[in-house]
């Protein structure tokens, strides 16, 4: 039986801890399919008015994201997950969008039964102002399991 797991990855150490956890949990499931999904939101023209600067920023973010995704993939293979079971997704979004909405869209499109995210541990103030991806994911996910890894 195929177990499809979508792991939301960002540039944080928490994300890599979440990947380690997934490796530990899924290594005994030969039918597992693990997608490492990284979202890049292009800076808004309101914030970075110069188009060339925006493109350069996105390019830099892409390189950093690919590096992180490869690191995460090595954690999975090092933890006993077969390379053929791992898929890397890098999504570049050209406008200001909710990362949670993008992750859940990917979850629905790909039919993932489980979504995994690392918990950043934001303060109450930070959560009020900036929001929390993990909290919002728990609230808004439907028809799947959510793992939040500390």
């Amino acid at each position, binding site marked *: 039986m195929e177990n499809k797991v979508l792991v939301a990855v960002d540039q944080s150490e928490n994300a890599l801890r979440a990947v380690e956890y997934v490796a530990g949990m899924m290594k005994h499931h030969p039918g597992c399919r693990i997608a490492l999904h990284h979202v890049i939101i292009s*800076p808004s023209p*309101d*914030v970075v008015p110069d188009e060339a600067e925006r493109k350069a920023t996105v390019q830099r973010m892409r390189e950093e994201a690919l590096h992180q995704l490869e690191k995460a993939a090595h954690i999975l293979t090092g933890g006993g997950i077969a390379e053929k079971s791992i898929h890397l997704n890098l999504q570049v979004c050209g406008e*200001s969008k909710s990362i949670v909405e993008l992750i859940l869209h990917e979850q629905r499109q790909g039919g993932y039964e489980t979504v995994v995210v690392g918990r950043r541990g934001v303060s109450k*103030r930070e959560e*009020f*102002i*900036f*929001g929390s*991806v993990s909290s919002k994911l728990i609230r808004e996910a439907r028809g799947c399991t959510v793992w939040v890894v500390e």
Partner: protein
Amino acid sequence: MNESEIKERIDAFSPLRHQGSIRILQDTTEFMAIGAGDVIELQGRYYYVRGEESEGRFGLEGEPKFWVKRVIDLADGSPKIVKLVFYEKFLMQLGAQQIRCFRSPRKEERILHKVWGDHRFMQGVTVQDVKGNPVRVLERIHGKSVYQVVNELNMGHEEYFTRTFPALFSNVVLCIEAIRDLHRMGEIHGDIRNDHVLVERGTAAYRWIDFDYTYEWAEQPFGADLFGLGNILLFVVGKGFHTIDELGRRLPAGKSLGEVFDAEDFSLFFNNRLINLKKLFPYVPDGLNVVLMHFSRGTEVFYETAQEILDDLKECGY
């Protein structure tokens, strides 16, 4: 218009006669070099610069805003504000929380277009100068800010809450509705403060100003705006902010601060600012106090939209 005609218009509309020659500027890129006595020409319309706007906080004198010029529109003599292009990045303090903020002429241009005709918001148009700078030409609203209106009321809190607060608060609710509508248009205000709502002289309409700030996170785009709305609610319900120093002076004899107040009674963002106003003013309705408590250190549930605030206010009769 030629220079002589411009001078005639200036003399007709300005209280002070202009002496000497006039600099007419079509490129507004170097806004620091544009000052009182200059004329800005934007697509055939002329604006006589009287000086710069300044903005203080809490009634104090502020620094001049060199990119914001007070002008006279030489077409009709009307006072206006001309906002020149200034891309600024800075750290802004929301109480104890620091955030990266950006000044965006483009964002303000977009909002002015979207709220055109909606007088809950300052009105203006954006005109490109010869270098393509998006210059915002704004109406000048004459009136006091909500901060000034409330602060200048010479009465105790109970009298204020009974006699003045109901009408004033109904206007604040309209302001929150305006922000809700702005959010629904896909925009944020960016700098919600009690001195960014002006009570217009004559009409007594409550009007939002200054929406050129923006931020770069998307997960909760309304967070900074909701923080601002919470501060306005607290200020208006409390007829000002009530801090630990003041509370200490108002304690009943023999009581300590810790016996009357808990840490959770205070603001999530301003550690010394009381949110649980019912402990100070027992006649504040429970429902209204609960709305305020969503901005306290003790809250476990945050408002995520302006509509949620409005729904709760409606529940308690506002």
